[in-house]
Every structure is written in structure tokens, then in C-alpha cells.
């Protein structure tokens, strides 16, 4: 199992990277933790590989006026260790523990996970849950996309082959909010059968904002809007959550596959949703 031959370019600047992508069959490699297995299997055989690992400006995690900007090349392990992320989005370190294994987390990147767009993956779920924006550079400049626009289907996004995902932006969350994440996989580090993240805000003992996002149950990460809408404005209590919980399953039709049956996925959604929601309640009360 060896990759087919390709031309290898290693630009040092974004301008050079964009120029390198001006080719009929070019592919970007970031961490390569999904792309190289596919190249080893020859499921993917790009004529030109554009390695962006030398572009230093893509490595940063920084605070902006409105939130946190996470550069494309930030590795899962770096995100898990970041004190800036720990301060504003502790959910990220909690989720990173579930991303594959130590050696993969050391190499795999935020942008790679976003662009690979596995429906069970942690970053797509986190960016959807946290209502992030995806920063994309192309020949006509920088644009941004919301997750629901960006993710189209399993392993399919709307990014053009001539564009580069340069960062994700996560808007800051107001203080009386808590976040939690959990997932179930057959073995530690496997792709999640189901992953669930939540954001819960309470003001004056009322749920003022609720977000619940599910991975592994649809083509892309999905928000449980029916559940969220039913719970917002309700008294902040375990009873309110229990009453609304059946709505999490509304319109969900997960697939059967070798990792889990559809019925098992539905029972995992209920169990994990309850678990992460109660986690946030425990923290607040």
C-alpha cells in the first residue's frame, strides 16, 4: 500500500499556496491523518500535493475582537493544551480526548478535520455547536462560511479546490453559560457512533439559551432545534430537560452501519444528550 506518484510542492506563503493550487488536480495536505491513508489505499491519487505545513501564520490560536481564531494548522493536541481555549472553550479539550490516539492528535489539524468532514468527527460538531465561522482564502480574497453552509454531505464540503481553509472563528460565549461534550465509540479513539455537544445558558433560573448538537446521526452535524426551542424559557431544572428530551429524537433517522445500528444510535443520542445536559446543570447548581 503505497501512494501513487504525485508532484510535491511546499509553499512557504499563502500566496504561493494559492498559486500552487492553480492546477487541474491539486490537493492540499495539512496533517495528512485522513488524506494519507486514502492515498495509501489509492482511493485518492492527486497529481499534485500542496503541503501547507511550512506556512507559519496558520499555526496560531489568538483572541480577536469578537472571539477566538484558531489557525488551520493547529494540531488537535495543541488545541487540547491551549490555555486560551481552556479559558473560553473548555469543551474543546474535553472533545479532543476523543480524537483518535496520541500520535494522531499530535499531527492531525483543525482544518484537516473540517475539510475531511466526517459526520462523526469532533471539530465539525464543535464548530457547528459553537456557531463558528470558517475562514476561506481564494484568489478573490477571504470569505467566511457558516457550518450549515460549509458541510454538504459525508466527506463533502463546499470549499473549492482552489481555496484554502485558513482558520475557524469561534464567537465568545456569555458567562453564565456552560458547555459539555461526550461521545461513544466501540473502542477508545474510534470514530464516534454518536457524539453530542451542548451549550446551556441560564439567566434568572430560566434556560435563556440551549444548543444541542449531534454527530454521527446524519450526513453532517445537526442541531436539535425542536428540543432547543421547547426548552428555552423553561425553568432551569432537571425536570424541564427530561420533559423536552424526547424531542431530541424528532426527525432523526440515523443510518445502520458496521459501527452501530440505527436503533442503537437513537438510544445513544438520548443517553448522551441527557448526560451532557446534566453535566452542565451540575456545574451551575
Amino acid at each position, binding site marked *: 500500500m503505497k501512494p501513487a506518484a504525485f508532484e510535491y510542492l511546499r509553499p512557504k506563503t499563502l500566496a504561493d499556496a494559492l498559486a500552487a493550487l492553480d492546477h487541474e488536480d491539486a490537493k492540499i495536505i495539512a496533517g495528512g*491523518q485522513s488524506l494519507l491513508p486514502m492515498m495509501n489505499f489509492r482511493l485518492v491519487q492527486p497529481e499534485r500535493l500542496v503541503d501547507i*505545513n511550512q506556512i507559519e501564520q496558520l499555526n496560531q490560536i489568538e483572541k480577536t475582537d469578537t472571539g477566538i481564531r484558531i489557525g488551520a494548522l493547529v494540531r488537535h493536541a495543541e488545541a487540547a493544551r491551549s490555555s486560551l481555549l481552556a479559558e473560553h472553550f473548555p469543551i474543546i479539550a474535553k472533545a479532543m480526548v476523543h480524537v483518535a*490516539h496520541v500520535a494522531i492528535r499530535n499531527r492531525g489539524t483543525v482544518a484537516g478535520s473540517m475539510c475531511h468532514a466526517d459526520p462523526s468527527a469532533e471539530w465539525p460538531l464543535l464548530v457547528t455547536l459553537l456557531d463558528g465561522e470558517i475562514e476561506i482564502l481564494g484568489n478573490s480574497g477571504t470569505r467566511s462560511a457558516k457550518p450549515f453552509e460549509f458541510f454538504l454531505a459525508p466527506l463533502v464540503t463546499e470549499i473549492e479546490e482552489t481555496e484554502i481553509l485558513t482558520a475557524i472563528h469561534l464567537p465568545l460565549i456569555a458567562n453564565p453559560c456552560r458547555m459539555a461534550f461526550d461521545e461513544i465509540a466501540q473502542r477508545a479513539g474510534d470514530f464516534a457512533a454518536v457524539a453530542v455537544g451542548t451549550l446551556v445558558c441560564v439567566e434568572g433560573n430560566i434556560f435563556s439559551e440551549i444548543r444541542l448538537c449531534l454527530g454521527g446521526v446524519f450526513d453532517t452535524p445537526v442541531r436539535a432545534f425542536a428540543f432547543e426551542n421547547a426548552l428555552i424559557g423553561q425553568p432551569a431544572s432537571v425536570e424541564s430537560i427530561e420533559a423536552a428530551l424526547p424531542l431530541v429524537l424528532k426527525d432523526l433517522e440515523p443510518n445502520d452501519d458496521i459501527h452501530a445500528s440505527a436503533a442503537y444510535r437513537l438510544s445513544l443520542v438520548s443517553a448522551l444528550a441527557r448526560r451532557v445536559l446534566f453535566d452542565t446543570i451540575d456545574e451551575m447548581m
Partner: protein
Amino acid sequence: MSYKLKIALNVNSESFEADVEPRMLASDFLRDELGLTGTHVGCEHGACGTCTIILNGVSVRSCLLLAVQLDEANIETVEGLGTTREMHRIQHAFREHHALQCGFCTPGFLITVREILDTLPLRNDKEIREALSGNICRCTGYDHIVKAVRTLVNERDKRLNS
């Protein structure tokens, strides 16, 4: 499209220069070009962990890395850990606890353990098993590997507390 690129790198504190085809995997480069056959090749798609090496201070899968990406890198392979006469403490612990049978997976385990001893608290066997979950062993049933790591963690914690 067969052509070669020049790379210069440091492996186990020794400098190397080589010309490599872009499609050559780092694992094949270490084994076939440098003769460092301690790094084993199992699944070649990142699932088994036996090809794990240290790249610039952190463990990575060498089958999910291209040889050209090793340019200007510092690499440590299992050959850099210790020799038959002067084994590294991790290798000693594996021997003491019978943490290997056929030995195919062992280089990857040793390199992974080298990293996690420095980076993770490993407070209990569950945490050790989680940290080792990226390395597959088909002989031992893992118990003896976990015992070896537990011994190393206890030694580490004693050292840190003294």
C-alpha cells in the same frame, strides 16, 4: 512524474542527507533507505501504531508522513532509545514484565510510552489503556504492557515527588 527531492534530517542524533521520491512514506524511508528496521510497518494506514516515531519531540505515525516531510526534522526511532547492552528504562520494564511476545508491535509501544510518560498523568490503569489505545498488540492481551507502564509511572511519580 517520478522524480526525487533532496532532504536533510537528523535521526537519533545523526545527520543524514538523501534524495527521495515524493511518494515515499517516512516509514519506508527509515527502513529501506537508512536501514533503521526497528520501526515496523503493519497496516500502513494509521491504525496499528507499530510505525510510531518521534518527530520534533512528539510521537507520530511514520506511515502517515512522507519522507519529504522529514526535511529539516529531528527524528527519534526505537534505535535511539537504547541498545541490547544498554537498554532504556522503558525497554527494561517491558522485559521485566514480559510485555512482549512476538515483538512486532513493541517499537511502537516503546515510542508511545516514551511520550506519554512525559505528557500524561496516567493516574490509573484505565488512563494507561486509553493512552495506549493507538497501538495494537495481538499477543499479550495488553495486561503485561499495562503492568510495565504502571511500573514506569510509579518510578516517575516517585522521582518527581522526591
